[in-house]
């Protein structure tokens, strides 16, 4: 029963993907169909047009097997052996270094912004109490 429900739910997600792709194509959006489909589903959930439990199992399942789904695309790097030797190594390490710095900067900045905003909220709360 859950297996059948899971398959139907993946079908629903697939329909949103197709709808997203169609919309992207028709409106010449600069984002891929899958992202458009996700935004469509998010909108449908927020507007209560869709119930979360209509897609819950399928979504959780796809999420759990996501690394497996990414494997075949990842194997595609085998077509670029040049990236792992000689001059290509410089480019290879450029990607690694740039990504690592991005992780540090994005992580630090958002953590810092989180602290400031939560502090501000607490202060605002205090001010409210004081003004009463």
């Amino acid at each position, binding site marked *: 029963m859950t297996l059948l429900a899971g398959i139907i739910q*993946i079908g629903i*997600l*697939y329909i*949103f*993907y197709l709808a*997203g*792709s169609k919309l992207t194509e028709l409106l010449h959006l*600069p*984002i*891929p*169909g*899958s*992202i458009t*489909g*996700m*935004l469509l*589903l*998010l909108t449908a*959930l*927020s507007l209560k047009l869709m119930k*979360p439990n209509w*897609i819950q199992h399928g*979504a959780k399942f*796809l*999420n759990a097997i*996501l*690394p*497996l789904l*990414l*494997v*075949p*695309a*990842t*194997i*595609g*790097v*085998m*077509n670029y052996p040049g*990236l792992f030797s000689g001059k290509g190594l*410089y*480019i290879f390490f*450029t*990607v*690694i270094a*740039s*990504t*690592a710095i*991005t*992780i*540090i*900067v*994005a*992580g*630090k*900045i*958002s*953590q810092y*912004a*989180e602290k400031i*905003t939560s502090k501000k909220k607490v202060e605002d709360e205090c001010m409210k109490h004081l003004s009463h």
Partner: protein
Amino acid sequence: MYETLITLIIIISTIIVYLAMYLLYRRFPLPLFLPILTTTVLIIAFLQFAGIAYEAYMTGGQWFNRLLGPAVVAFAYPLYQQRKVILKNLQPITAGVLTGLVTGIVTVLLFAKWPFVPEQMLYSLIPKSLTTPVAIEVSDAIGGSPSLTAAFVIIAGMTGAIFGPFLFKWFRIDSTLGAGIAMGSASHAIGTSKAFEYGPLAGSLSSLSMTLSAIIGPIVCILLF
């Protein structure tokens, strides 16, 4: 009939190798044992050894790719579940995603805008932190090579999934919010699948950052280059 059999063998053996690597990772949760890394390395080694081309492997492999679209759509569910936390933290999320986007581009220019790096290579590197379908389109639009970009996207994703936990420790990025946003901004879907290991909130923040980057990234890249 013969082709269907080959396709089935490729699909089933990919799943079996992945399951074995997943169990190995559960037993020894070391970054180097990340299932996507070990599975990929093992399958590439086997294909090289057997002299099988990537295109031949993809007769079966493409079936996994077909589920990637709905898998990205499925991110809407954890995003919806975490909507309250996300709405409460819109400022840090926007700040992190935007700085991440800019840092990714600036560091590429810093490391690769040299006379000995061909221009096409440089343009292929720029969209590397975006999710594959977006990165490919951006690369094509600014004068890069889409297939090279696809390879860079994978390397960027793997970097986040493997080194992310170390970077968080060394640079004291200890909030769920910081870690999730960093993963999604720098390492798209591969980083997001790793972020879900930290819990649904980190995973949702990562997929949200990936999505925001996918929406803002092309606009920034195309305006700049």
